């Protein structure tokens, strides 16, 4: 939004020439740094002797900040505040009041003024008040922009989610249509493949809904997180056991190599999600008779969970988008594997939530290697209050 040097427009509306000239000269050379957003502000001051000409100028030129005298010869400052400026919530108004009465200040604030200056004011009072208004304007503008971005991201997420939820329904609908119209003849067994495919798509949809609930719980910060000391090897073994049947069916061997004594202070359920997603992917996307190697080690102040498979692997282009929501690598090998496209996105979000990272190396036809690194020592305070960055999903 703001480049290095941003010019904001400030209008001073006062019937006293001395005020107009004074304000213009005091603010003319003022610059202000806003470290929060990394920009420097300077002001371009315009001045108006009466309310009518100021209001008339708003059609073509809206200032970000207005210094508005409450008592003007024609239309008064309070009226302008109540009328024209009430429709422009992005304009920051500072009322100039002739008498420092509490009553007029309260009234101006009620009508939407951001601050007020009581006449007579010193150059320093003016600068302090204007600085506050600039700061307010910049932060409010940034908040509006973030809100807008959040709405856009949310809309995109919902759109893709709707598509992902409809696809399996459409597929099953299609198969039912074929069965209903006896497209392969009257022999029921001819339709076994379609029925099996329908079941798979429904299973995929169920997984999507469950993963979505996990994701929402984590991102909302609603889930109560119970960090406790966890032995990494135990977590890995539990994930391996969960995949035992699936691995046996495909003749896949799973090996675990663990550096002894590795533990982490974290929420059990979240660590289980990381391990389960990595290990189940390594089995699901492996080839029959392949192997999965799980290695737990210490890397300086982090623990590393490495899961290597001998699956079909991915291209660089595929790995680049792998950790985004709803991304599934579609090819003839992955076709019959139910997945939500949210598992690795979940792993990535959880890893960064714990101040860690996840990366992947993959070679088509050879296999993939996923590495999750998590800080070794985590204080419970650091994690207890942490919430994911809001911009991730809105």
């Amino acid at each position, binding site marked *: 939004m703001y480049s290095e040097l941003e010019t904001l427009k400030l209008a001073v509306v006062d019937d006293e020439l001395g005020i107009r000239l004074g304000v213009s000269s005091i603010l003319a050379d003022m610059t202000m740094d806003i470290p929060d957003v990394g920009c420097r502000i300077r002001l371009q001051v315009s001045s108006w002797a009466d309310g009518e000409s100021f209001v008339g100028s708003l059609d073509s030129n809206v200032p970000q900040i207005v210094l508005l005298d409450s008592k003007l010869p024609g239309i008064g400052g309070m009226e302008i505040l109540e009328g024209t400026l009430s429709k422009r919530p992005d304009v920051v108004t500072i009322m100039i009041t002739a008498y420092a009465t509490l009553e007029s200040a309260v009234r101006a604030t009620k009508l939407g003024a951001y601050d007020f200056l009581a006449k007579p004011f010193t150059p320093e009072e003016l600068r302090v008040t204007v600085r506050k208004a600039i700061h307010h304007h910049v932060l409010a503008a940034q908040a509006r922009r973030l809100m807008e971005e959040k709405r856009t991201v949310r*809309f995109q997420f919902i*759109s*893709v989610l*709707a*598509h992902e939820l*409809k*696809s399996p*329904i*459409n*597929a099953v*609908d*299609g*198969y039912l*249509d*074929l069965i209903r*119209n006896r*497209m*392969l003849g009257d022999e029921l067994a001819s339709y076994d493949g*379609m029925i099996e*495919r329908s079941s798979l*798509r429904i299973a995929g949809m169920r997984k999507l809904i469950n993963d979505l609930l996990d994701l929402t719980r984590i991102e909302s910060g609603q889930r109560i997180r119970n960090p406790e000391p966890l032995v990494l090897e135990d977590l890995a073994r539990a994930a391996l056991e969960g995949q035992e049947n699936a691995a046996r069916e495909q003749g896949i061997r799973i090996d675990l190599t663990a550096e002894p004594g590795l533990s982490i202070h974290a929420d059990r359920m979240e660590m289980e999600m990381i391990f389960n997603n990595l290990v189940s992917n390594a089995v699901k996307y492996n080839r029959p008779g392949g192997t999965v190697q799980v290695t737990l080690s210490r890397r300086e102040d982090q623990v590393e969970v490495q899961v290597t498979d001998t699956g079909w692997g991915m291209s660089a282009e595929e790995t680049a988008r792998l950790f985004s929501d*709803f*991304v599934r690598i*579609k*090819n*003839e090998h992955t*076709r019959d594997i139910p997945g939500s496209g949210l598992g690795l996105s979940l792993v990535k979000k959880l890893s960064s939530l714990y101040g860690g990272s996840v990366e992947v190396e993959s070679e088509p036809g050879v296999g993939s290697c996923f590495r999750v690194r998590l800080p070794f020592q985590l204080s419970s305070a650091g994690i207890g209050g942490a919430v994911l960055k809001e911009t991730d999903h809105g």
Partner: protein
Amino acid sequence: MANILCIDDDMDVIEFLTLTLKAAGHTVETAPDGKAGFAKALTFLPDLIVLDVMMANTTEGVGTAFDIRGNEKIRHTPILMLTSINQEFGNAFKLQSDSSSLPVDDFVEKPIASKTLLEKVSRLLAKPKA
């Protein structure tokens, strides 16, 4: 009967299209994404292309439709676009059924009914070539 190319990244939709169109006597070739589909169109030179609008979470099919229209060899091939986009995207992406915004000849809404599909396919194949 006709040669038909089906482009969709959902293998179940491809299976549905293949079975339905083959049952009606057509010869069917398939492609899993827009790029592969465009390449195949250039060699297969189909009489009709069935093209999904949403692939890999983007409106990739739109780009593919423009690619097809921009190539001298296949620019006149009728395109039947598959979509469930009308309900999903609301104002973000308006598809007009008269195809004024997209260079396609007709639309079929997902879930696809085999009867509707075959009707639209016959109608497009019967149309005199532009």
